[in-house]
């Protein structure tokens, strides 16, 4: 009994002391070093792997530039998109930078930085599909078709709510698997972030796939306010620091340079700084 009490006391003291140390460290600096960022790859051109296994892409370069601005180091952690917010809650990383659209549903859970990119979403089909070249894709055109999306992103919510009853929605954990099933003809049409579909399907497959219908960025309920960096609700100081860094990168032309580098080929890369 006595031994138990001693152990319990010891555990409590140790627990309290480590707690005290971590809080004081967090107070000393707003920005952790290294800053751990969660990202779902591949999601070209935002984030993908070179054949050597090295991570690169718009978000990786922008993230590294932000870390440089904040005088810290980036540590990238890979995480499937459908678990990316729970991963933040579980402290697997400090922030999410993974094509995460700012919307009210997510703002209930996390704190967002100012947006750094605003892409529309687009439909992609095989070049010989009957849907290729359509002006707009509506419920009638999509009736009975198999629509592929990545699970849990805004495109998933949009097609599930609008076409979930009339078409079959297949949800993929990884973009790779969706591309495979598009290629084999299991999925009739994919609904993706426009630059991502442009890069991953159209550009990477020698004209096998085309963009069709019109680009969609309304209503706000689904398409939100663009991509933001997400962090835990209480990290207000970190948000301030990151917003400041983004502002500085806009001012010195880094954001513009990265935009030109990664989205020049996508005719739709719009002006992203509002």
């Amino acid at each position, binding site marked *: 009994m006595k031994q138990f009490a001693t152990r319990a006391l010891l555990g409590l003291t140790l627990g309290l002391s480590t707690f005290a140390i971590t809080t004081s460290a967090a107070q000393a600096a707003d920005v952790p070093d290294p800053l751990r960022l969660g990202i779902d790859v591949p999601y070209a051109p935002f984030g993908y792997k070179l054949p050597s296994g090295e991570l690169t892409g718009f978000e990786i370069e922008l993230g590294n530039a932000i870390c440089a601005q904040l005088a810290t180091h980036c540590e990238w952690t890979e995480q499937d998109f*459908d678990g990316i917010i729970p991963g933040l*809650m579980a402290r697997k990383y400090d922030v999410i930078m993974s094509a995460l659209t700012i919307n009210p549903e997510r703002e209930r*859970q996390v704190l967002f930085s100012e947006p750094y990119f605003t892409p529309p979403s687009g439909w992609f089909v095989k070049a010989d599909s009957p849907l290729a070249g359509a002006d707009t894709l509506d419920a009638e055109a999509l009736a009975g078709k198999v629509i592929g999306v990545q699970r*849990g992103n805004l495109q998933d919510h949009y097609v599930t709510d609008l076409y979930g009853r009339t078409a079959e929605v297949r*949800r993929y954990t990884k973009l790779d*698997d969706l591309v*495979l*099933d598009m290629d*084999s003809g299991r999925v009739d049409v994919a609904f993706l972030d426009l630059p991502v579909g442009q890069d991953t399907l159209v550009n990477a497959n020698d004209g096998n796939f085309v963009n069709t219908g019109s680009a969609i960025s309304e209503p706000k309920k689904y398409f939100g306010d663009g991509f933001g960096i997400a962090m835990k609700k209480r990290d207000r100081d970190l948000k301030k620091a990151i917003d400041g860094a983004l502002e500085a990168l806009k001012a010195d032309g880094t954001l513009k340079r990265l935009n030109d580098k990664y989205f020049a080929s996508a005719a739709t890369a719009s002006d992203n700084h509002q």
Partner: protein
Amino acid sequence: MEQLNDAGSSGVITQLGQMLEDALSDNYIFTATTLWHYWEGLVTTVQLVCLALLIGLILAVPLAIMRGSRRRWVKMPVYLYTYVFRGTPLLIQLYLIYYGVVFFDGFDISLGVTSVHVPSIQETWLWDYFRDPFVPALLAFVLNTAAYTTEIFHGAIQSTPKGEMEAARAYGMSRGKMMRRIILPSAFRRALPAYGNEVIFMLHASAICSVVTLLDLTGAARDIYARFYAPFEAFLFVAAIYLCLTFTIIAIFRQLEKRLLAHLKPLS
């Protein structure tokens, strides 16, 4: 004093009512839409597991008999099949069957003047079935469960008491008749507890079919988890459903064992 007491207890009740109301109105996850999503998942899981087990069982009986044959060329292919399918993870078998088949491109073989076209799967009637994820998943599950069930039955057949076979032979039964009347009925009974486990394993293994976009119970839970970022609610609910299914299976097998294995029970 009495009045005060009254007011106190009714106050507690209203408070409890308020808490319950809050909990229910705060529940934005379990709406009619998500419950319907779970229901669709349940239907798929039950369909897939029942069909896989049924077909696997039908395949396993002849395979188990072949597995016990004295002829090498009968025994070896079955042994190889169960060896491969029990020796590799079901997830990998599923991936190979679902994604693997589409990597086979059609090609032509030229034989002098004529040429023979070997079609890819998209060009054949098989594609009608392999396009959707259900049939590839079913095929993977059938092959897997048939391999395990074959080994379970094989073991049960091997452990037939010698006396029973000698008695059958003494009655002048042929090998076929002996198999039908003596060996198989008693082997099935002895295999029952092990087969019950296989059924439960199969139910739990079916959770992986959501990786090929099939909307089963686990797939439904993953969708709801990704939508509401609520891992506990989504997965605890689905775990409870799996528990109910498992207990149902256990109850069915307990009844079966009670009836069919009554002769093996201790006398007192």
